[in-house]
């Protein structure tokens, strides 16, 4: 009975905010974790352990909310950002999230990182009806509004990225003979599925070889030799950075020049292209959704100038080539936008409703044209990427922004 009243209030509130900013007609409504003065946001991220490099994302988000608070908060409320270390361990993630929910009493759990940790807390948060908002993993399973209405992704999923490569190939090289090299785990398999779905009926005729490797293998040279023997003219590389670099290097050593497409995960100039050799990397394709802070072309970009200003003031001394800084800023900005849209109705249901009503939202750090769109049936905020080609010592964007929406069910 309350829910119908609430829905009515939402629409009123949303309309009021949209047309007359600052209108106080909307009724104030709060769930645990929100009040007239404060919104409590919870987060878990590995600050220690094997994946501690990602901890920088949490620090960036903390700094971003500090900036928001210095500017007066969101609709007059300060953000209280509580972030705990889960050390990339699922049992620890469960403990820390329960602490956030039951002891700190946060309104939402925002941007928890890692597929295992998020899988471990998903059931708990959904049964408690607490938003698990903008999870920091590329697995496709987060876009499942029916099964898990309280969980939402953020970055493009591996499958949607793979679909974009498939679309590109269908358009530019419809008679391609494709070989796919993938890591034999959920990451690699998601890419494989996305590629096949994207190629559709032509998948069976275009893909001439699927070769997988184990992440525990020291080198994948033998796989490359094997693939070359099948003589494909396109090589899709769905590998983590170390193996991505090995692949580019080995194909060059073999004097083999197929069209190579590299996953966004391994598109790092410093970690992949440089070790593989810039000479060998020329012409490799990939896709991107965020601006690269190390790229000179964004120097005078208004969005990146705002980012740069933020870095100067709130995170001096951080290594700006680290993509975590761009990532954390963009994710935090998206949450700030959602909370702003919530107005005075800071219930968990409304946070999810607003998060599912983002229309053409563009955080400062995303590529021009990449927009965040969500709906009640689309819980994948970013699903657009742009193709890029490696030239000289950096990536050059080309072509249009391509969409690759993927629903789990």
């Amino acid at each position, binding site marked *: 009975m309350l829910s119908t009243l609430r829905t009515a209030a939402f629409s009123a509130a949303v309309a009021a905010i949209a047309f007359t900013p600052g209108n106080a007609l909307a009724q104030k409504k709060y769930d645990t974790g929100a009040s007239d003065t404060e919104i409590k946001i919870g987060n878990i991220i590995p600050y220690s352990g094997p994946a501690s490099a990602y901890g920088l994302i949490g620090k960036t988000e903390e700094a971003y909310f500090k900036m928001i608070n210095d500017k007066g908060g969101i609709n007059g409320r300060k953000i209280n950002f509580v972030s705990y270390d889960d050390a990339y361990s699922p049992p620890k993630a469960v403990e820390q999230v329960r602490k956030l929910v039951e002891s700190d009493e946060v309104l939402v759990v925002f941007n928890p990182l890692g597929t295992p940790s998020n*899988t471990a807390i998903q059931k708990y948060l959904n049964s408690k009806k607490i938003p698990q908002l903008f999870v920091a993993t590329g697995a496709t399973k987060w876009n499942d509004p029916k099964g898990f209405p309280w969980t939402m992704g953020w970055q493009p999923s591996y499958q949607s990225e793979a679909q974009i490569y498939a679309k590109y190939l269908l358009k530019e090289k419809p008679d391609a003979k494709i070989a796919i090299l993938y890591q034999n785990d959920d990451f690699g398999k998601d890419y494989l599925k996305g590629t096949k779905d994207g190629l559709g009926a032509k998948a069976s005729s275009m893909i001439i070889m699927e070769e997988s490797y184990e992440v525990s293998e020291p080198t994948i040279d033998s796989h490359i030799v094997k693939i070359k023997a099948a003589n494909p003219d396109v090589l899709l590389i769905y590998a983590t950075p170390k193996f991505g670099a090995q692949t580019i290097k080995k194909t060059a050593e073999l004097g083999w020049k197929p069209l190579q497409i590299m996953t966004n995960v391994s598109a790092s100039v410093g970690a992949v292209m440089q070790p593989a050799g810039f000479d060998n990397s020329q012409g490799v394709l990939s896709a991107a959704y965020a601006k690269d802070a190390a790229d000179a072309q964004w120097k005078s970009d208004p969005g990146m100038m705002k980012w740069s200003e933020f870095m100067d003031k709130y995170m001096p001394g951080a290594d700006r080539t680290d993509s975590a800084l761009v990532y954390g800023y963009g994710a935090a900005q998206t949450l700030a936008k959602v909370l702003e849209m919530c107005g005075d109705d800071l219930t968990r249901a409304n946070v999810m409703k607003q998060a599912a009503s983002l229309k053409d939202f563009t955080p400062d750090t995303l590529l021009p044209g990449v927009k965040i769109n969500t709906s009640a049936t689309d819980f994948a905020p970013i699903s657009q990427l742009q193709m890029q080609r490696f030239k000289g010592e950096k990536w050059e964007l080309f072509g249009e922004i391509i969409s690759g929406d993927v629903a789990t069910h």
Partner: protein
Amino acid sequence: MSAAEEVVTEAPAVEAVPKRAMTLGLGTSLVVLAALVIAPVFVKNFIIFQMTMLLIYGLAVLALNILTGGSGQFSLGQSAFYAVGAYTSAILMEHVGMNYALTLPIAGIICFAFGFVFGQPALRLSGVYLALATFALAVAMPQLLKLGFFEHWTGGVQGLVVTKPDAPFGLPMSQDMWLYYFTLVITIGIYIASVNLLRSRSGRAFMAIRDNEIAASAMGVDVALYKTLAFGVSAGITGVAGGLGAIAVQFVAPDGYTITLAISLFLGMVVGGVGWLPGSIVGSAFIIFVPNIAEGISKGLSGAVFGVLLFLVIFLVPHGARQVAIVAQQMLGKLKKN
């Protein structure tokens, strides 16, 4: 300071602990038990969950304590046994549909067998070499769990989500509280069994091997049998703890059982006092709560703060909780005399 003197004069190997000193007195045990039984009524579900984890890790530390404190063998591979137990329970519950309580003895038996078999090659090794061999086991385990061959059962990197059991017979109790009492009963059972084991003939054989292997074998102790037996018992108890851990956390994944867990358990044993069984729970509290405290002090330097805290504990009370307990007992004794 007497503590400092003890350190200097002590042999570097595992220190001999007389068997009476391995347990608490009856009175103290009852007080601790009463506290563990009553506490959950007054706290939030989250705290109950933490207390459940405290008991579970306590069991795993206890298992290591039997191995190291009892039979004098080192192991950095406990996380592997813990993982096998966790996966056994999770697979039996989710794929076979077995009742959670029944999965635990099976996890225990499988891990006992696993530990017993692993104990065979370990016989040829001792001290740091044995520690390294078990270390290899701990490093290999997460990757083995990811193997495509087992993926149908283990869920690969994605892991398995486990359903948390409700309280039976319609007891008016939250899932967390029921699981806590369930764990408590198992913990007490295993604790009593362990104390009795160490007091029995087998326990005396363990300790004889620990103190002097040659002398033990001269006295007619079957060294090979008892060493592997200690490994088996330790692995079996760790497996039960792993199974309980899977049920409490409701999720198993290879990343949960890395070498870090094995080192944590080792740490818990040292902090609790090697060879002092009640110390297991103190050690378990240390590995659960101290990282949280360290994080509260500094997020960026949580690892360093944890290191400093650990260093302080080892430096000030090298025998861990046992030493604190002994000092407390002496002070109480003096007070009584006065």
